[in-house]
């Protein structure tokens, strides 16, 4: 067996087909898109070589700055919220509900399986003001607060967006982190308790350090997922009002397919790729030191 696997030809035969498919569906489009960054045009008008013009525009386009700020703001706020609440839920599952947690776990996970567009429609209905009030405005009126036009101002639209995505993804992170928490051996808790640790100190010195690897994975997952947010924004606010809730992905899509500027759209895609790469490297780097010795 070893001799077979040591043979380069065998490796090629075994890996070849998978590699070919991967190359065709992943690498070719990536490099194709990379190629587009030095061209401008679309299939109707044809393509024209423009050199670094797209990159120059990238730095001078105020909408890029707006979209970048929004993307980062969304990624940070939602990551903190969804990993935070997910962790809290996981702690509740493990330490409070214990064996009885399966029902709550299922319920909290349920929104994850719903299609994003359906959830967005649901939230649009909940927060709508015209032609009739949605549930949220009705509740506000009930306690004497006038109706709010949630999607008319950038701040309230952002708030609804965060609420929706939090509701949608919290259960997923809870399950992910729960898996990390149940892996902590019981005898560690026991000995910690014998040493007099309880409550916050137990969490601070035993739970957090031992679940750190899975917590870190969650954060990487979350940051990369939220930097690439597209469907929930498109379905809920469409990037509005104006372009105040337009992330880079949506701007990239509009640029390529609505404005017919494939080259500039690809340049935005490249920018997004680099940002995701940098963030991931940064998080990996910072996690390399051994925190249990900290």
């Amino acid at each position, binding site marked *: 067996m070893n001799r077979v696997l040591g043979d380069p030809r065998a*490796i090629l035969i075994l890996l070849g087909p998978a590699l070919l498919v991967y190359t065709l569906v992943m690498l070719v489009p990536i490099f194709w898109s990379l*190629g587009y960054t030095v061209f401008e045009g679309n299939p*109707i008008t044809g393509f024209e070589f423009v050199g670094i013009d797209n990159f120059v525009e990238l730095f001078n386009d105020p909408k890029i700055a707006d979209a970048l700020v929004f993307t980062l703001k969304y990624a940070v706020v939602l990551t903190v919220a969804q990993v935070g609440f997910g962790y809290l839920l996981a702690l509740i599952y493990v330490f409070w509900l214990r064996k009885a947690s399966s029902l709550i776990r299922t319920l909290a996970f349920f929104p994850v399986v719903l299609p994003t567009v359906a959830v967005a429609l649901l939230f649009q209905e909940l927060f709508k*003001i015209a032609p009739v009030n949605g549930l949220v405005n009705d509740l506000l009126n009930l306690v004497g607060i006038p109706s709010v*036009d949630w999607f*008319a101002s950038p701040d309230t639209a952002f708030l609804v967006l965060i609420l929706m995505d939090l509701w949608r993804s919290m259960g997923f992170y809870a399950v992910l982190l729960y898996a990390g928490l149940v892996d902590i051996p019981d005898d560690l808790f026991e000995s910690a308790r014998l040493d007099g640790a309880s409550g916050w100190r137990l969490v601070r010195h035993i739970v957090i350090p031992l679940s750190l690897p899975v917590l870190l994975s969650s954060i990487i997952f979350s940051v990369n997922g939220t930097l690439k947010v597209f469907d929930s924004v498109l379905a809920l606010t469409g990037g509005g009002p104006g*372009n105040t809730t337009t992330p880079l992905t949506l701007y990239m899509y509009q640029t390529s397919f609505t404005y017919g500027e494939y080259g500039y759209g690809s340049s935005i895609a490249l920018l997004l790729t680099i940002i995701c790469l940098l963030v991931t490297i940064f998080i990996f780097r910072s996690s390399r030191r051994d925190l249990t010795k900290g």
Partner: protein
Amino acid sequence: MTTARIRARRLAPLIAGVGATALLLTACSGDSGGETAAPTDFTYLSFAENTSIQDTLTSLSTGSCSAENEALPLDITTQPQASYDQQLQLLAGQNALPVLFASGNSPQVAKDLNDGGKLVDVDAALEELDQSNAIIPAARSTIEALYGGDVYVLPTEFNVEGIWYNKQLFAENGIEEPTTWDELTDAAAKLSAAGVTAFSADGQDGWPLTRLVGNYLFRTIGPDALQKVIDGEASLTDPEYVEAAAAVADLGKEGYFGPSVGSIDYMTAVNQFLTGEAGMFYMGSWILANFNDPEQNKIGAENIGFMPFPHVEGGEGSRDQLAANVGVPLALSEASYGGDVSAWLGCFAENFGSTSLGEQGVITGFAVNEPVEDLPPLTQAVQEKIDATTQSVLWFEALFNAKAATTSQTNASQLVTGAISPEEFMEMVQADLE
């Protein structure tokens, strides 16, 4: 050396090769040519949302154009409007455009296609078929204004735009049909004071609001107001242009669009007007289909009046210059144009107008070859207005590129809610025009 590194070293040239090939392909894909064989079907690609053209074509294929249909059977496919332009880009890139197709979401798409030599010169084709008079003058002038003087699309709709008003609400509040901008704002103030929303408007889509800005510009600066901007002779940030945005923003400031205009969608706006909640409604004549439907129209068709956008004191434009558009015009692919297709075009040009008006109630840009009877009175009135119109104007975004049009429409509701100033609005749109 580990196997992983050996593999990586072997892969490096492969990846580089793929990259280089991709670049080459990218460079070549723009001008991939090739001749298309004569079509076997009269293929038509339509907006999925628009059924009236499909129905009219189907009716022609079994009626007046059955002989042409025998030779080249009609074959309809549809594509949702939201992804239509992408589909057209793909087909054009593969040189696989259908024989007849809706020309896209903005006039720019057809312009690009025509620049690439992919469209039939409809004017020349109709002349060859002895059908030069098939397109009515008003529609022809609108097409020429839209497409830089050439006619390479078929006007399957012809709409005029203006302000529809509720006659009963006007009478109750002692309002005469306004002919000037000041009279219009006075009327709005009276309606507002009576607790009625003055203007019903779809702020979610934005275009019904920017239409007002465009009309105001045509009245103050004249019919060539926006052509000047495109030609670089004027800028939207010039004071006389900002004035138009400010005038519309003022309507919003006074609350004439009602609360939360940005959250009102198209059908809600229509319903507000047709249930008597709003006194005025800026819209194109395609809305007649809704007005003539008693299910939707609670105020009665006889209670609806139509007025052109009012005159602005001291302006160059006039109230006679109705805003007009040709809906979503159709274009023909040059690659598949030939004998059988041209026979179809001839029959289409001759019969489309009356079939569409008679069966769908849709006014087209084609001459009506057989008089249609029993038209609803409101449709009749609009048809007369169209016949009397000699000069038409376009709409705010008509000559803009897709980027500026999107910016204009997505920011319109912010303009009337005061979230952005008229100067900022015009600056944003102008920036995307350059």
